[in-house]
Every structure is written in C-alpha cells, then in structure tokens.
C-alpha cells in the first residue's frame, strides 16, 4: 500500500478544535472537496453547495447519507482554488454540536473516499502549491516534524490497553498466515503443509469478526478509552472513588471508610457537554508499607505527567499539612481543579475555609457537582486543555484504518471465493497488513519473511 505524499487526492482533518466558542472546523482540501461535502451536507432552502459561488457560507445540516439521520447543524464555506489556504478547492465545515457530532462528521467525509490528512499536510500543500513563500519553508518542515511526533505519541498512547492488544494479536495472526502462504510459494518443495482453503477462510473470517466487534466498540465509545485524561488525585479516604461514581452516576468503584481502599487505577469515560472525559481514579497517595498499595501510588504519580486535567481532592475538614503540600507541588504546573470535599452542609463559610482556588463540594450530598462539571467543560472549551482535537484525529484515524483493514480482508475472501490463486489472495492480505501497521505507526518491513524462517525449516 502506498501513502500518498503528493497533492493529488483530497484530504480532510479537524482544522480548529472546539474552542471556547464551541465551534470546531473540519477542513477538506483537494479536487473532490466540493463534491464530497455536497454528499453529506444538506443546505437550508434552495441553496446548492456545488453550484453556489466561491467564498460563500451556507447554513444547513450534516446528514448521514446511509441512515438519512441529521448529525449536526453546521455552517459550510466553499472556497474554490486558487484563492484558498492550500490553493486547492477547500470546504470548511463549522460544527456546532460538540465533539461527538464533529467526530461523526469527519468520519462521514472519510467514508466518501477522502483521506485523513497527515500531520501538517495542509501547511505542506500550501507550501508546495506556492501559497507560502520560500522563507516559510523551514517553519513548514518544523511543523510537520513536530506535529507528527505529537500525533504518533498520542496515537500510541491511545492505543494502550485493550485496543492495542487486539491490534497486536490481529497483526500476529495475519503475519502468521502470510508467512504460511509465502513459505508455500517460495519453498514449494519443502515439507510445508499446503495452505488449505478452510484455514484461509477461517482465519480471515475470524479477523473480520474481530474487527467488526472493535469497530462497534469504537462507535459506542467503549473500546476507545479516549477523552480528556482526567486524574482524580488526593490523599486516602478523601472521597476520590465516590466522586468517580458520582460523575459516572454508577457504583463503579468501591467506596469504604477505610483509607487505602483503591489500590489500582480505575478508568472510565463520561461525556460532559459533549466532551469525552476519561476519568482516572487512583490510589490515595501516602507513604505506605503495603506493596500492592505502593504500586498503585506509584502509578498515580506516573499519571500526573500524562493527565490532561487533574481533579485534586482534599478533605475540607483537615488543614493542609506538609505531606499535602508536597503533593500539591507535584501538580503545580498542571491544569488542576482544586476540590475541597465533604462540605456536607455547604455554606458560605466553606468557601473561605481553604481559600482560593479551592472549591467546596460534597459528593455525599451532591453539592456543587454540577458546578464542577461546568468547570471541567470550561477548562477544555477555553482551550486550556488542547488535547481534544488530537484525540479526535487519532480516534477517527484508527476507525478509518480499521474499516480499510476490514475491507481488504473481505476482498481477500472474495478473491478466494472466485478461485484465484494464492498469490492474489496474498496481495489483499498484504494490503490488510499495511493498514494495520499504519494504526500502530510501524513501518512496513520484512516481518513476513522473518516469520517464514522462524516457523519453517526451509533452505538448502
């Protein structure tokens, strides 16, 4: 499979994340930009995106062409080449409905055959098409380098956990199968069992099934533990797990009056004002002799660096001692909301007890929980936490590549079914492997050839 580095195909990506304005912009650039947008955009009244003049703003809805369902209310601007940022035809979709509809909209664009832009690719095209002048070249190269680095980090980071394991396992299965096929082809005279049609069908179908399950999981947001990584941090017994449960509105974490209850990280995703938050409940931080608990504590400290947002909890009835201060120092440079919990009889005195920036709350009584939610959303929307559009990108990218992976596998099954020889099936499976490897950012290498020599005793 070939990545296209040259400006010929149409690309799309989130150009501006959801800022404080609550509007996010998806940009489509390339020869198909207008026709693709027309397929998913239904303008109000008698207007028409294809025929309207350039640099016009149309109001209407994004409608899923398959289900005819409205996805979002949007403003769409059409800009014809060459007077655009990239000097290609550009369509920008201004999304209003929050992150989830925006993600859906981008997914629809990609389903129309548009390719997700590489990091920095709009800028690259702007340069290659002569829009930016020579002096800006180096800035462009830096942007590409930096953005892709960040993207890869994000992508890998998002891939942790269940999804990454599934991808690795599928890759392993596929490489095994391919090495088997290739060994059959390159070593026809050796004692290698012939690849049977049954084995091929079974293996590939199982992969298709697994991919479907992953994609369904992605739709409901269960597999992708995406969102603003929100760390709930504090000393033991301050009510961290209680807060997690309250935000989730379910009894996910165990809550007891015994300090040190939570010993490992718990992660759950919740959507607040359309923004996905990944809540991370941790072991209360303290010096401990208990090894299991200590590991939990270490992980919590680890997470401080990786979290986008920290909810720092303290018991309002206790003063801030030296140990608390040490912990507070750890989060000093991070985006943090300070929560003074157990303010059960919430009154004006509570506000002053620990002073600014502490916000008194009571998880038990439900005081100020809505205010907390608002503040969480505000931090994101004000752009103080900037991860969301990147999260969106990597997430949509994964989904898209998984879809392509599935399609390549299905193609392999069709090829097999039509009675084509083994090396044709190999072509489809190689395509599939390339998509899978793109998810994990791995280079196409000699994995299959290596596997042949691992698994089979061949050679003179």
């Amino acid at each position, binding site marked *: 499979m070939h990545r296209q580095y040259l400006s010929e195909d149409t690309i799309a990506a989130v150009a501006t994340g959801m800022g404080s304005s609550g509007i996010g912009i998806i940009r489509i650039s390339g020869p198909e930009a207008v026709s693709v947008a027309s397929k998913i955009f239904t303008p109000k009244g008698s207007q028409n995106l294809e025929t309207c003049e350039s640099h016009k703003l149309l109001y209407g809805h994004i409608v899923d062409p398959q289900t005819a369902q409205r996805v979002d209310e949007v403003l769409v601007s059409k800009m014809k080449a060459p007077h655009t940022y990239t000097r290609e035809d550009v369509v920008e979709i201004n999304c209003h409905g929050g992150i989830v509809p925006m993600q859906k909209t981008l997914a629809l664009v990609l389903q129309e055959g548009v390719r997700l832009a590489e990091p920095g690719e709009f800028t690259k095209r702007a340069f290659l098409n002569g829009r930016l002048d020579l002096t800006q*070249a180096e800035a462009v190269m830096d942007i590409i380098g930096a953005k892709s680095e960040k993207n890869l980090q994000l992508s890998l980071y998002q891939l942790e956990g269940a999804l990454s394991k599934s991808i690795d396992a599928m890759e392993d299965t596929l490489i095994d199968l391919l090495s088997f096929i290739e060994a059959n082809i390159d070593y026809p005279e050796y004692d290698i069992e012939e690849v049977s049609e049954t084995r091929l069908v079974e293996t590939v179908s199982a992969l298709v099934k697994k991919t479907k399950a992953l994609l369904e999981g992605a739709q409901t947001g269960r597999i992708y533990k995406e969102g603003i990584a929100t760390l709930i941090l504090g000393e033991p017994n301050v009510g961290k797990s209680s807060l997690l449960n309250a935000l989730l509105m379910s009894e996910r974490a165990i809550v007891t009056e015994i300090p040190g209850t939570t010993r490992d990280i718990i992660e759950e995703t919740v959507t607040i004002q359309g923004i996905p938050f990944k809540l991370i409940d941790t072991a209360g931080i303290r010096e401990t002799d208990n090894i299991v608990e200590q590991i939990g504590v270490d992980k919590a400290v680890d997470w401080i660096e990786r979290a986008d947002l920290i909810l720092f909890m303290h018991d309002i009835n206790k003063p801030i001692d030296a140990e608390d201060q040490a912990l507070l120092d750890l989060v000093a440079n991070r985006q943090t909301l300070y929560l003074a919990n157990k303010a059960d009889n919430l009154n004006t005195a509570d506000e002053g007890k620990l002073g600014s920036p502490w916000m008194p709350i009571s998880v038990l009584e439900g005081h100020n929980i809505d205010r907390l939610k608002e503040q969480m959303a505000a931090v994101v929307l004000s752009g103080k936490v900037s991860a969301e559009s990147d999260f969106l990108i990597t997430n949509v990218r994964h989904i898209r590549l998984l879809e392509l992976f599935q399609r390549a596998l299905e193609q392999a099954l069709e090829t097999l079914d039509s009675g084509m020889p083994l090396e044709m099936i190999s072509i489809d499976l190689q395509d599939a492997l390339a998509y899978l490897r793109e998810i994990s950012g791995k280079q196409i290498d000699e994995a299959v050839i290596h596997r042949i020599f691992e698994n089979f*005793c061949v050679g003179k």
Partner: protein
Amino acid sequence: MTYFAGNYDVIVVGAGHAGSEAALASARLGQKTLLLTINLDAVAMLPCNPSIGGTGKGHLVREIDALGGEMGKIIDQTMIQCRMLNTGKGPAVHSLRAQTDKWDYQNAMRSVIENQDNLTLKQQEAVELFVDGGKVKGVGVQTGAVYHGKTVILCTGTYLRAKIFIGETQFYGGPGGLAPSMAFSDSLEKCGIPLQRFKTGTPARVDKRTLDFSKMSVQEGDVPIVPFSFDTEAIDIEQIPCYLTYTNEEGHQIIRENITRSPLHLGDIKGVGARYCPSIETKVERFADKDRHQVFIEPEGRYSNELYVQGMSSCLPEEVQISVYRTVPGMEKVEIMRPAYAIDYDCIIPGNLTASLEYMGIEGLFCAGQINGTSGYEEAAAQGLIAGINAVHKIQGKPPLILDRSQAYIGVLIDDIITKSADEPYRMMTSRSEYRLLLRQDNADLRLTPTGYDIGLISEERYQRFLKKREQIEAEKQRLQQVLVRPETEVNSWLASLGQPNLKNTFSLAELLKRPQITYANSRLVDPQRPELPQPVWEQVEVQIKYAGYIDKQIGQVRQFQKLENKRLATDLDYRAIHGLRIEAIEKLCSIRPESVGQAGRISGVSPADISVLLVYLDQQKRLKEGSGDDHS
C-alpha cells in the same frame, strides 16, 4: 617489482557468475575489457548446488536473458534436468529451475568469454586496487603486473580472506579447493572501503555407486522443457533424475552429541550466516520437534559419479559428517568424495553503493555479486550484468541503467541491498517483490527487452522477433474482445462440462476467460476462427486477460510508487541542515544516502513525516534555484 601491463576501459576482478556477465556486457558494448580470475579453471564455477533458478532466482535468470545477458543461454545448453516449480499456483510465482552439468556449464561460459571480441581473460590474482583523488585507477596483481583501467568492477565472490571450516579443521582457503585471495582485502581497506564478514556453506559430495536409490523417491524433470532463454526454441535432452530421502532421529542424535565440535559453537566462525541456508546441525537445533528433514540428491554432472546432497550442509568434523550421512536411508554405505564445509569471507557494506552499483566516494569502482553480501549464482549474475552496463555508461558519459522495484526483480534486489542493512547474505525470494504479479518470469522480455535493445545488448534480429511477439499478443487480445459467445445450447453444455453456470447473455470470450475454470486451451471450441499462435504468445494473452483486475490494481500502485522514485535526492545532501527531520532519520539518511525520496522511505527508521519534510525541502531548493536563475538572467 611491478611493471605496467596495459590500459583497459573496464577491469573485472573475478570470473564467477557476476564477473562473467560484467565482462561480457562491457566487451559487447565495445569497451576494451580485462577479466582477471584467480584460476582459469574456476570461470563460472558452481561451488555449491549444481542448479540454476528456483523461486525468485528463475525470475532473475529470465530478466538477465531479456536484457541480453548470458546465464539463461548457458543453462539452456548445459542443463540435465528442468522443472517449472509452483505450477499448482498462479502465473506470477511459476519459477524455472534446472540441474546442470557443472563442468559443461563452466566450459560453455568459458568458451563464450574466450571468444568474445574486446575481452581478455587472464589468470591473475588481484592484490592491489589503485585509487587516486577519489577515482579508481587500476589493479595490481601478484606477479607485479599493473593494469590501468577507467573503471574496475569487483566480483570477488567468497574468495576474500576466505576461511574454510570442517569441525576443528580450519584453514584459509577458497571455495571448491581453490586458493583464497589473502592480500586484496588489505588494499581495499586502505582505500577506505570497510569490510564485513559473511558466512556460507555447502554439503558433502558423495559417490553415486555407494547410494541405494531404491530407498529414495525419484524426481524426474518436466517434459517438455521450458527453456530459460527467450532465444532458445526448444530443449530436447535426456534428463537425469534427482532423488529425495530424509534424515532421521538417529542422525539427529549424532549431531546433538557432536554439536560442541561445530566451529559455530567453538566461536571460531566470525561471519554471519543466512537463515535460509541452514546447516543440518542448525536445523536440528532450531527445529528440535521435527523428526526428519528432507535430503535431495542431485547429480553434479552427466559423466561424474559425484552427487550433491542438498539439505545436509554442515561444518561438523569430517568423521561426524560420515556417521550422520550414513544414517540416512539409501546412504548407509555412502562414501564422501568432498566433505561439507562452511566458509567465511570478506564483503563490503552494500549500503555504500549507489543504485548503479558504483561505490560511493570512489568514482569508477563498481561491485557485484557476493562481495555485496548477496548469495546465489543468479543474484550475482544479475548484479554483474548491471555493473558491466553501468561501467560502460560511466565511460561513455551515459546515465546509468537503474531498474526500479516495479520493473524487475533485479531492481528489487539492488534496491534492497543498498537500502536495507542486511545482517545476513541476501537471497532473492518472490516474497520480496511488492509487484509480484507484474514481475512474472513469463513476461520478462516484455518488461526488459526494449531496454536491452536500447543499451545495445539485444541484436536487431532478436529485437524484431520480440516486436513480432508483442504485436501478436496485442492482436490476439483485441481479437478475443471481439469473439462473442452466445447463450446457445452447445455453449451451455460446454460450460456445464466445466462446472460453469449457463450463460444468460452474450459475452466476449475475453470476458469469459476471467473465470478460473475457463482457459485459452479449453475454449477453442467456442472460438472456431482462432489463429495458430506460438505457446508463449497465447500464454501471455491468457495471463493478461485472466488477471487483468489484479494487474491493473498493481499498475495503479506502481504509478504512485514512481512519483516518489522520480523525486531525486543528491547523494551529497546535508541532511543535518534540514529542519524538521528526526535525529534517527538524519543518521540513517546520512549513512545510506538514498537517491530518491521513494528509496528514503524504505529505509528503516525514516518515517512518513520525514518524507514529507524531504518533499518540502526539495521544493524549497527548487524554488531557490529558480529564484537565483532569474537573478542571473
């Protein structure tokens, strides 16, 4: 004492498979060529298996032939058995392999070389390479003769500081009992050419009279034989069979008991061996659960009793080899004529070559064959041919011949060795080609003969024949589009006999040929007007029609591929000065020095983002140039 011994355009060091092709190409293209060999009796020697071709390798031979090389013709003349492998699979992976009489093979090649105009063959051991001011000047030999050359092609095979291992018996020695080349490596290193050590090995040769073939299964050749060369009309010979037998636990046990006597275990072998060429002891160790391994018995020649024991290469002591071999059914009384041995030798770092096989930093110096870290006669010959052509082009001031990955296995081979730093000898496999369906052995002439003609290695007469074949193919493809097959009773009963559903509409025969069960041959019935065509023509027609969908898909991929191949990178580019490249990428790019953005993308450790950065950089440079151009005008 040294003395001046003559001026040459091209000096080829080593007359193995790479050297033979290189020297012939250069001489045929009109350059005064000197071919040096350490031993005149070792020209085009086959020191390992007595066969040419096989999966991937057979493709290489066809390509060499299509470009005007010699290997295909020689094997056609000297083969004693031939088989098309993989016929149970699709056309892209059919591969020819022939057993040859290795003495006949050598003699045939030597005779062509000796009778080639512009070509001088000498038994001389090269001991010194002359380089001055970054340019190659010539070669000095053991007797003191100094040859001046505009270009030099190194095809030293496995001779450089070669060391033989047979258990504890270890000595400096070349392949097949020949002398090693001990001095030349030092000279290369002095010229600033770093060397590494690779290892290979060969099984024992045994006496035919001491084997019992009734305990083995026979492997006959194909009838009729498909020749390697597009120039060979037909091959009618009496074929000699090969035999198949197996090792067993008893032999494996002996190996395990004596494994500590292997020089690999003793730590004596410094060279890195190939995984696809495992010794029998490596197989037993690595695949402990396999209770038997295949052993193919192949004749070394028509008139000799020597037999090659494929599958049992070894570097265990001779007496251990004898006991292990004697456990194999049919080999109980075997007498070994030459023991198995491992050999390790010096080779260059192929990443230091350009795609034309010229050494970076030493103008006019080319390298081909095992010195480049490859294995195999065919791989060597392919490189030799390209190096020979490019040495000539260098002299004549023409652009080098560089075949890319979409044009030929030769392109895949050269691109792989110069781009990927392999840590073992490189063997061609069809799996290495991403455009396998396009690079078939059956269409090598269609792909490469026009190039061979342009270069000057394909005669006018042969080219005319080729043009005719190409026209016939196109005409027949056209015709089959016009042949209509109607849903008539006769047609439907024919389809039923092939297990095919009835036709509902009228189809062209070309359309019908896409169905797996329908072939060109069996559709004659519905095609009464069919012209009589040679088999290579209608086979080509059939393949092109049958797999058109996939072929088109790969052609589309090739178009994308070529766009990045066409973005050239200067080999002296200062990657450190390019903004946005990652450190790892900078290091890799500086050491490999790719010639195109496409090649850069294949280097491990260079990411897609690095490629984007390179594209922007190239554009910046272009604009700078255009800008300064304006200033001067």
